[in-house]
């Protein structure tokens, strides 16, 4: 390969390129580069960027769904939609808080469960002596691939009052609830069972204290029975995807490290804790982050199975945003809810990243970034 001159072409004002190509080639690449990437930019811009801007606009108006949202008849109401959701006592705030409460319990239930289940399945499937490993890996992963609509239909059937799950529970003498029609909260039920309180006449202190349009008793309800059924379904569906990530992580563990630990006299449990888990740390982080992001956006199951019921206990911000706009014609509020959800997810994942960050690595990255910046400044003329 012969090197072509790298000096700047007179009169072009362009910085000398380190490449081995001449001016014409650079231009061709530039044109081709932009050409290749333009369809992507157009589609993403039209259907991702502009919608965000448009939604932001609508969330500050009182548009009722008829006519263009940019017409002169539509009034700018400032932060009124947001105020109705966050600061003003009323139905909108109550519904929004209910959706946050429901999804909060949903997230803290689903994420640990699906991470644990995925890790367990990965460890089991990864055992060297196992025969038919591919078959089992496939079986555990298959639900992730199937449409949520199809799975919802199956689970609706399995969880009816006289369905398969309850028939199975009756073998153990447990009288199963009418899952998807049961709005009772799990924490309330456990308290009943332990004798802490009685759901029929809740402790006055809890019931009469109102925080953000909901009583403390309602805040501490836990997920409802209906929501729990959906949680079980989602954990069952998504564990397979994360199982694959864990398998990849497990298989990457160098055998020498484990052998060294064995030679050092560590038993199986100690090996797992001191060697395997730290090695899997980045994967666990990834699984939890993806889990949090995904669970806060849950929508399909609510749309297909429960429509927010029973008694609003499966209402989530995503579904609330959709129904406020599409069924109640409150488009401004629907858009505002969507943005609040966006902010929430962003803040949560940032906090989580910060908490669980590896301090050494973070410092290293900072140093590298500073180096790169300095290098770049040195190069550009």
């Amino acid at each position, binding site marked *: 390969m012969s090197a072509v001159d790298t000096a700047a072409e007179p009169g072009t004002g362009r910085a000398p390129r380190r490449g081995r190509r001449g001016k014409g080639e650079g231009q061709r690449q530039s044109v081709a580069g932009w050409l290749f990437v333009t369809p992507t930019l157009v589609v993403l*811009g039209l259907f991702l*960027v*502009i919608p965000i*801007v*448009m939604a932001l606009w609508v969330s500050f108006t009182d548009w*009722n*769904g*008829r*006519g*263009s*949202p*940019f*017409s002169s*008849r539509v009034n700018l109401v400032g932060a009124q939609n947001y105020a109705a959701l966050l600061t003003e006592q*009323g*139905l*909108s705030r*109550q*519904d929004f808080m209910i959706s946050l409460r429901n999804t909060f319990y949903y997230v803290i239930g689903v994420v640990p469960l699906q991470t644990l289940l995925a890790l367990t399945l990965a460890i089991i499937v990864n055992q060297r002596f196992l025969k038919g490993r591919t078959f089992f890996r496939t079986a555990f992963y298959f639900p992730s691939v199937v449409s949520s609509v199809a799975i919802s239909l199956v689970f609706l059937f399995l969880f*009816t*009052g*006289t369905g398969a799950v309850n028939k199975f529970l009756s073998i153990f003498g447990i009288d199963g609830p*009418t899952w998807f*029609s049961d*709005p*009772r909260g799990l924490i309330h039920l456990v308290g009943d069972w332990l004798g802490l309180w009685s*759901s*029929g006449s809740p402790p006055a202190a809890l019931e009469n204290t109102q925080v953000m349009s909901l009583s403390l008793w309602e805040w501490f309800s836990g997920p409802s029975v209906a929501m729990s059924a959906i949680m079980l379904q989602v954990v069952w569906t998504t564990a397979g995807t994360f199982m694959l990530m864990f398998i990849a992580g497990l298989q990457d563990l160098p055998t020498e490290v484990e052998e060294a630990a064995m030679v050092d006299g560590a038993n199986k449990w100690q090996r797992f804790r001191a060697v395997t888990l730290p090695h899997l740390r980045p994967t666990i982080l990834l699984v939890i982050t993806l889990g949090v992001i995904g669970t806060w956006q849950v929508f399909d199951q609510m749309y297909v199975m429960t429509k927010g*019921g*029973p*008694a*609003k206990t499966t209402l989530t911000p995503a579904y609330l945003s959709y*129904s406020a706009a*599409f*069924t*109640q*014609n409150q*488009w401004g509020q629907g858009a505002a809810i969507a943005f609040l959800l966006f902010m929430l997810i962003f803040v949560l994942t940032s906090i989580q990243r910060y908490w669980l960050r590896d301090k050494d690595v973070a410092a290293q990255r900072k140093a590298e970034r500073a180096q790169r910046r300095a290098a770049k400044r040195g190069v550009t003329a």
Partner: protein
Amino acid sequence: MNRTRRTATLAVVLGGALLVSACGGGGFKDESTSTAPASAKGPAALKMLIASSGDAETNAVKAAADAWAKKTGNTVEVTVASDMNQQLAQGFASGSPADVFYMDASRFADNAKNGSLYAYADQVSDNNDFYEPLRKTFIYDGKQYCIPKDFSTLALQINTDSWKKAGLTDADVPTTWDQLEAVSKKLTTKDQVGLGIGVGIDRLGAFIVQNGGWWLNADGTAPTASTPEVTQALEWVQKNVKAGNFKMSNQLDSGWGGEAFGTGKAAMAVEGNWIKGAMKNDYPKVNYKTVELPAGPKGKGTLQFTQCWGVAADSKAQAQAVDLVKSLSTVDQQMKFADAFGVMPSRQSAADQYKSKFPEDAPFIAGGEYGHGPINAAGMEQVVADLNSKLESFGGANIPQVLKNFDTNASAALGK
């Protein structure tokens, strides 16, 4: 990362957004204020959206629409909605809604206020033939928008086999609350509850009317839920639910009262005309009869439900749509619908025909005289949805608290 480049990109994007909105807005229609009907040139292709109770209703409506289409040379495409409110709302928002659709009384005021409906009632020459209370339901801001298509009322269904097995006779048919309570206790067995009631105010409201109360005052401007009449009525039902001789449909693992009744989980049910079709199609083996709901402390009471033929303000073929509606509202056509899926004609001139053809529906028709229509004030949908959700666990609900919440929310909604 180059800051100026990023701000430049952002500016371009925002500029693009404004550009799209300025020259676009292609899909959004401006609200029309003229009352002259828009008319399609040449043969019109009308879209009709209905909420069907089953195949019987769907086929009847399709047949009627096809007949009109053949006569006039237009076409009608009938669609059955799976979620009527959502599909209507999405249609209105996109500017291309169905031309003709079922408009439920409870959603009417919101849509009229929104400008989504075309008022054509003044073009119907025999408008006075429709029952006045029904017509009044569809008046907003002094103008009647549409004509009622039919109406139904709630009555009491009794499983005659269970009735006989409990040793009851015709003389025992309940006409007061106390009798209803006693009879339901006799009918309650290990596998079957005496009375099954659907969840929500669309059933519980009947008891409230029987006790002389209602959710709103007479002109629908203020809530009246925290009154003794309403509270006592609901607490009476709750007492029986706690005692076990009444059960709500969600306690019976059923989607509605009719399902509990048809699957034998309840010996009696409180349902409307539509139960006839459901029983015939889905639960043909159940023998039952219908009687009027028993009277409460303040007299007889029941709920009335009605829908009108809505025509969209955004329809491009309003004249044809109104013509279709007129043809669907003749006495003959109303009787055909009554035949097919058990609704009652909204025309007074059809009353006698109906009574003689369906004597067993006398209890439903009687309800037309003392029935109360639904809450149809504008802006109440969220409030009613919240009330219904709080009444879902009816056995354990704190009734005075729930009613107080309703009043607060309703005042806020009505005050706007």
